[in-house]
């Protein structure tokens, strides 16, 4: 029954942080509800747009060109994710060196170069041009 520290145990306090973090604003809002005046009028609650009545809705369709940014982001984010586990192995003996050349390092350098080429291709194709 002796409890050795497992990786998960480090995360338990964080739940408390999340709860306290949520309680701070909720407490503040509750306090405001008690102290502050509440005389809401229709005018007071109107949308601010330079002092005039807005023309049409704010929620519109944006240009689809922007979607390329999001896709590129997902791709690169996932590929960066592959790099994290590698930190632990690149200098260890987990992946042996062949002929004095570390496979882990060479492999990852190749990976970076491939990423770079992909990025340059993206830029050249003007996929990342802000319209």
């Amino acid at each position, binding site marked *: *029954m002796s*409890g050795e520290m*497992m*990786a*998960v145990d*480090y*995360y338990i306090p964080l*739940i408390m942080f999340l709860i306290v973090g949520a309680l701070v604003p909720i407490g503040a809002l509750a306090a405001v509800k008690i102290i502050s005046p509440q005389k809401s009028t229709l005018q007071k609650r109107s949308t601010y747009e330079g002092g005039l009545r807005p023309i049409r*809705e704010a*929620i*519109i*369709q*944006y*240009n*689809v060109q*922007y*979607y390329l*940014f*999001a*896709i590129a*982001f*997902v791709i690169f*984010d*996932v590929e960066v*994710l592959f790099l*994290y*586990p590698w930190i632990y192995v690149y200098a260890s003996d987990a992946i042996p060196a062949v002929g004095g050349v570390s496979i882990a390092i060479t492999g990852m350098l190749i990976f970076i170069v491939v990423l770079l080429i992909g990025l340059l291709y993206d830029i050249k194709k003007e996929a990342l041009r802000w319209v």
Partner: protein
Amino acid sequence: MIDLTQFYDIRFLIELGAFSLLAVIILGLSILTVYSRNIVHSGLYLLGSFAAVAALYISLNATFVGVAQVLVYIGAVGVLILFAIMLTRKTLMEEESHG
């Protein structure tokens, strides 16, 4: 055989409680995602359920996967979904929300 004594182990109870809580959150948010009338609300519920899945991974001692879930699913895929919502036609959204 099930060792009944472990039901009295407080650690087990905590784990069980955490798991059931997370399960309820995941299921609840997933159902809300599907049935929500507003597409942005759906997206946000989905993000919440991703977060709960991340917590589930962590509680299963797969911490790296859990954090990766946060980074990729909430940070990247979630943003992709929100972006996609902003790029949809408003009339489409209205159909969704009224239909």
